[in-house]
């Protein structure tokens, strides 16, 4: 595991005034969010709301037009490498290279993240994500569910302080998805890591996230615990609230976000 030796902030993630504009169109508009240690925060919203844009900005692969991002006290703009060393992610649209085996992928990324005692750590994540049978298989020949488990295993390699999950259970059967949800919530609880979780599965969000941010057209419309949001809105559940919000604030349907 990397040396997480110089923390300097209470929040694992502190994003302030994030904006991303393309020409005159704002994909993300003045979004501020915090993820505290041990907290699982849901980022939900219709397609095109700006969720992936926000995730990409936090991952340092998209520069905000304005605003700042601090990960475990490291300013992403000034200390990118340090900030990303304590971060990891899994996204359904970012499978690991299909021409390397599961084990080779984990070794390469483990080395990039500076994971200490890497061989032991690889064994741990392979076991945790039930990948023993696939360890020698090329990642490209695995089923989509297996590839998601490999991506999650990679995301856990460096025991991140901040874990970003973009629809992590989208390709997974319900039983495995439930197991993964339990694993990630206990990971956050036990290691005091912060998790930012996007999903279109509102039952999953309600079960997993302590706090939820509803996004639409690049802005945060609602924020609170799932229970509080439901109670405040009068909706029967989080999914009904989602549908209500999506109808009131339809997404632009444009490609970016």
């Amino acid at each position: 595991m990397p040396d997480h030796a110089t923390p300097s902030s209470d929040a694992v993630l502190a994003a302030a005034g994030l904006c991303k504009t393309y020409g005159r169109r704002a994909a993300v508009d003045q979004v501020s969010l915090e993820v505290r240690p041990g907290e699982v925060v849901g980022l939900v919203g219709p397609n095109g709301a700006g969720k992936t844009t926000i995730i990409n900005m936090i991952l340092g692969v998209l520069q905000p037009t304005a605003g700042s991002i601090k990960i475990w006290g490291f300013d992403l703009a000034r200390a990118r490498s340090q900030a990303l060393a304590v971060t990891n992610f899994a996204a359904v649209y970012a499978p690991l290279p299909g021409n390397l085996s599961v084990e080779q992928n984990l070794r390469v990324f483990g080395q990039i993240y500076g994971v200490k005692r890497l061989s032991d750590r690889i064994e741990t994540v392979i076991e945790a994500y039930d990948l023993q049978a696939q360890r020698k298989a090329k990642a490209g020949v695995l089923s989509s569910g297996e590839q998601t488990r490999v991506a999650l295993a990679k995301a856990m390699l460096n025991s991140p302080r901040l874990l970003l999950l973009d629809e992590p259970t989208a390709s997974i059967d319900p039983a495995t998805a439930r197991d993964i949800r339990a694993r990630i919530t206990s990971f956050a609880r036990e290691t005091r890591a912060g998790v930012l979780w996007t999903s279109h599965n509102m039952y999953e969000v309600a079960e997993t996230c302590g706090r939820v941010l509803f996004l639409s057209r690049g802005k945060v419309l609602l924020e609170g615990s799932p229970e509080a949001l439901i109670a405040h809105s009068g909706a029967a559940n989080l999914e009904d609230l989602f549908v209500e919000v999506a109808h009131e604030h339809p997404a632009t349907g444009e490609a970016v976000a």
Partner: protein
Amino acid sequence: MRASRVGAVVLRQIYLLRGSPVRLLPMVAWVAIDMVLWGFLARYLDQLTGPRANFTATLLGAVLLWDFLGRVMQGVTTAFFEDVWSRNFLNIFATPLRVSEYLAGLVTTGVGTSLLGLASMLLLATGVFGLDFLAYGAALVPFLLVLFVTGIALGIFGTSIVLRFGPASEWLIWPIPSLLSPFAGVFYPLSTLPRWMQAIGEALPPSYVFEGMRAIVAGGPAPWDKLAMASGLAAVYLALACLAFATVWRRAIRTGLIARYSAESVS
């Protein structure tokens, strides 16, 4: 710069080469074909003109050195293309890996693969056609150094172009050595060229290598001063290529191209 992260970039390439002999074949096959073709041509020309002209040393030696430059360049670009082909940018760049570490990994990979190509070329050129590579004397060291650094600079510059213009611009990269060879005087003195071509040739570090090679074969001394200048010029090009890559990378982060690279543009 962390050696372990550079090592990770190299390790990925080692896994790919180990897992697929098809990747190893072009590193030796194309240069071997060149050696055979130009080796027989040089032998035939030696038979026609007598040994005094020494076409084996001038022609085959020139092909070998030029192919070496091409191998170095392709070693760097192919390592980069592996990330393009496997759509790995998001995974690789959303990590603590620095641009300098990534480039160092590509260059290290290029060093390894080009040395493999050089070894196979030397084996054929010396074993089958009797090229005495050591006849160039101590000048061989700056010869290889200049070609090596220029090849790395071209490789990094090529990756900048592909990063900027998307995967379809790959075809712009492969012919770069062929495009430069007429100006670099690989097979003839620069004085053969019209003045405007000479001016371009003089700006290319490999030109001094081939001029020096011909001078040595003709029995003259190695032009150390010009080779020193060529080394300096190659170092400047390498720095400029790194700057170009860093600039294009920053732009790709600003526009979001890194995250959506397969779309080729974000507009």
